[in-house]
């Protein structure tokens, strides 16, 4: 599903952020990415969503070499990747419904289809009934679940989350992780960057560890 092949990433200002990173995530696998702050976790995830492109090596998503993707293909690659962020990245002036609907509207789904899928997605994250609320009146955990609903509403084969529980208390974090496991059970590939070692160790999943841009365990 996702393959990194000797990937290096250099920022002119910060030097080599990733060095010769190679790993392979199978379809339906769930894996964590850990490492110290500044190890390059976010940078690695950005390569998957083609927010950045690597300087050497290649990133393959579903067999497609992301380095060679043309700019106009990038949106279609991003539709295959459900992105989840630590700061949720919700539109504050839109309702929960509209936030979750965004990927569907972008893909050009009709009104009824959008409505049906948004409801299904909100149901999965346990937020059905909050569609008309605005993000500002929701708790952090609820906002993150809106973010997750938005990431899965388009049914992408891969979900990528960068510190999804960074702002949540341990109980809520465990709840969110459990939600990801449920998605894994229906065949979605899950890749989560987190430095919450205790939470990761409780769960029985593959762990990739970055240290100064190099993969030390996989």
């Amino acid at each position, binding site marked *: 599903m996702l393959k990194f092949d000797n990937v290096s990433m250099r920022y002119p200002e910060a030097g080599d952020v990733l060095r010769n990173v190679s790993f392979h995530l199978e*379809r*339906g696998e769930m894996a964590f990415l850990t490492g110290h702050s500044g190890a390059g976790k976010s940078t690695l995830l*950005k390569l998957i*969503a083609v*927010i*950045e492109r690597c300087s050497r090596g290649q990133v393959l998503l579903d067999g497609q070499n992301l380095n060679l993707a043309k700019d*106009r293909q990038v*949106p*279609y*690659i*991003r*539709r*295959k990747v459900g*992105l989840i962020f630590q700061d949720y*990245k*919700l*539109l504050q002036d839109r309702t929960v419904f509209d936030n979750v609907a*965004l*990927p569907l*509207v*972008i*893909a*050009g*789904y*009709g*009104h009824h289809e959008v409505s049906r899928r948004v409801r299904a997605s909100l149901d999965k994250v346990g937020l059905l009934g909050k569609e008309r609320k605005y993000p500002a009146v929701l708790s952090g955990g609820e906002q993150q679940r809106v973010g997750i609903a*938005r990431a899965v509403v*388009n*049914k*992408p*084969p891969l979900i990528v989350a960068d510190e999804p529980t960074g702002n949540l208390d341990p109980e809520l974090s465990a709840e969110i992780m459990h939600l990801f496991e449920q998605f894994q059970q*229906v*065949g*979605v590939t899950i890749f989560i960057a987190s430095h919450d070692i205790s939470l990761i160790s409780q769960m029985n999943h593959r762990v990739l560890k970055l240290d100064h841009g190099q993969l030390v365990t996989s």
Partner: protein
Amino acid sequence: MKHVTKKPLKQEQRWQTKISGGNFVDKFHAYRNLHAHALFSSLGRLVASRFSSAMTIVVLAIAISLASGFYILVANLQQLAGNLEASNQISLFLKDDISEGKASGFANTIRKNPDIQDVKLITKEQALAEFQAYSGFGEAVKTLEKNPLPIVIQVWPKKSLENEQALKALLDDFGRMAEVDFAQMDMQWVKRLQSIMEVARRGVTLLSLLLGAGVLFITANTIRLELHNRRDEVVIAKLVGATNGFIHRPFLYSGFWIGFFSGIAAWFIVTTIMLILKQPVENLSRLYDGAFHVLFLGFTETLALLFISSVLGVVGSWIVLHFQLRQLKPE
């Protein structure tokens, strides 16, 4: 379908999104949905920020109505000049000592000239009566002891005599005749008026270009502000897979709405001004031969006005999107 696979669909396959493909009808529906979304969401935002939208639209409407107002003004003047053009007549003002009998004989001689279509003699009395009726100096004229007006012979050259030099030669011939005080071709001042009109028309074109550029940049700046205000939205939309087209569309539609509504407002401004001017102008027209009527923006001109303002709006926002959105990366 020849054979239905017995193996149930794996869950992951059902989960897969329809990222591309789909049949033509689906694609058409998706395309239509996207456009409808952009069209109405941009209209919605325009309404939501009605105060600033209204201010922009009023400024644009004033600029557009200036251009179209001058256009219609020139069109009206041109109509006036057009009416005058029909009479390329020559007026011969006879010397004071020529009697009416002599004048009528003189008119008959002219009539025999093969270049002449028609001749009309206007006696002093007729001229005075006409002057009294139309000039508004009726009472004042009555107090005059002596009729100051000369006898006038109006001469219409044959239509075949189009050549300007030939007309001029004819005019000069008339001017040299003993009975004639001076000869005047009405064509001359029509011509002069026409060249003034030509200048005015060019002026309108230049003014329109200038104001059009103004409209373009005001729209561009409005869209730039909107883009700035909605930066987060643009970035998030890009992160969840929005194409440039999807990002551009609402802004282009915003530009369209701004231009379109400005065009409508400008139409109302111009039409109101024309309605206010209509009565006095018609009064003035009645004093002369009444052939002049106030021209309003016609159907085609109204369509052109709306079309041009909408296009300016779209182009203005396109310029901004072209130069600004390139720099806007998700990070």
